[in-house]
């Protein structure tokens, strides 16, 4: 079963759980200058991102993910696409575009390791309400 990984700018390391989710899959980073502009990613940050990508086993392809990934998926007859989890509305919108362009391919978001694991939803009204709930776990290895 061929898999692909769409690595985006929020998950630039080799031990992100997305790599374990689809072992051996090729990872692609889509260098999309329109996204960079929309996300307010200036030149210095673009350089930082590119420099970081050079440390990774990832192919850097120019263009929007919604254009690049369907072509590659078709080429390798991919059946799964795994993507690091994200809140970013711009990435999620592009992911919707990718899904719309792919047929018969399972798309999965893979979350990163959490900072703290809380049984109940903390009150986010102010930081110190959250901290009161999270402090105990935050001061432990693994946040558990």
């Amino acid at each position: 079963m061929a898999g692909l990984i769409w690595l985006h700018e929020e998950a630039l390391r080799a031990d992100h759980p997305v790599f374990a989710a689809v072992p051996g899959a090729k990872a692609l980073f889509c260098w999309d200058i329109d996204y960079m502009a929309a996300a307010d990613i200036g030149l210095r940050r673009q350089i930082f991102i590119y420099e970081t990508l050079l440390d990774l086993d990832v192919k850097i392809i120019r263009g929007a993910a919604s254009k690049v990934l369907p072509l590659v998926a078709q080429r390798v007859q991919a059946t799964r696409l795994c993507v690091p989890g994200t809140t970013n509305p711009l990435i999620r919108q592009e992911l919707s575009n990718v899904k719309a362009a792919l047929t018969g391919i399972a798309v999965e978001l893979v979350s990163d390791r959490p900072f703290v694991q809380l049984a109940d939803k903390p009150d986010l009204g102010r930081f110190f309400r959250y901290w009161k709930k999270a402090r105990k776990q935050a001061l432990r290895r693994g946040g558990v």
Partner: protein
Amino acid sequence: MQNYVLEEMPDLTSLATRFDNRAELAAYVANLSNLPPPADLSPIIGGRAAALSTLAAINPVQYSDTRNHLDGAVTRLSAYIRHGVLTLDEVRNHALDAVATPKQAEKFIQELAWRDYWQRLYKASPEAIWVDIEAYKTGFVASDYADDLPADIARGETGVACIDAFISILLETGYLHNHARMYVAAYVVHWRQIKWQTGAKWFLQNLIDGDPASNNLSWQWIASTFANKPYFFNLENVARYSGPNINVSVTDNLPLANSYERLAELLFPNLTSAVAS
């Protein structure tokens, strides 16, 4: 491992992965965005190796004692955390390993928790981070604040020496100490009456660690749209924390050279009672 060669796909363009030096890489990336290469390279180096080297150098105890000082023992991990090169979990675990008791690392870990907090807020309402969470508590309403960033601020030529120095550092390195970010943000919103969204966007465009949640929600905290009162400061405070390299002379920083009480009257004249930083 699948075997396929993307170079054989003429409708896709693979980008270069080998460069002789950072300057060559920077010029290549600039060209992809049709921009001229930067005059100077940022001291913040990308990559996991650089991230781990930076992580190995942190001192949670010194951080706790000196973090508010511009020449204090700050970690400069933010760009790596922002782009997932390091996780909050591994940074916290490293900090715990570096101290005798968790309490010694608590201030440092609390700063990591701030980021986790911002991310949780972001996840709860992804689109809301560009919207005023609450009303301004400055005696003004949102429409009283300007939409555009004046050119003198964008260029670091406001005539307020310490603010110009901080902006210069931001533009030249892509990094700014958190306390200096607070000074600049407060100057933009409260002294110049610019919408926090305008300043937040400007920071995002220039910071290597620019994170929509941490950045925008911090600006909202400064502005008072996510705090019980506005954050502001005076020249005495800058002098206390800035170290010897920042010009904090009164004559070169006149708009900041007042007591908190007087500044509150000047900055927030519609408030009936003075607010304090």
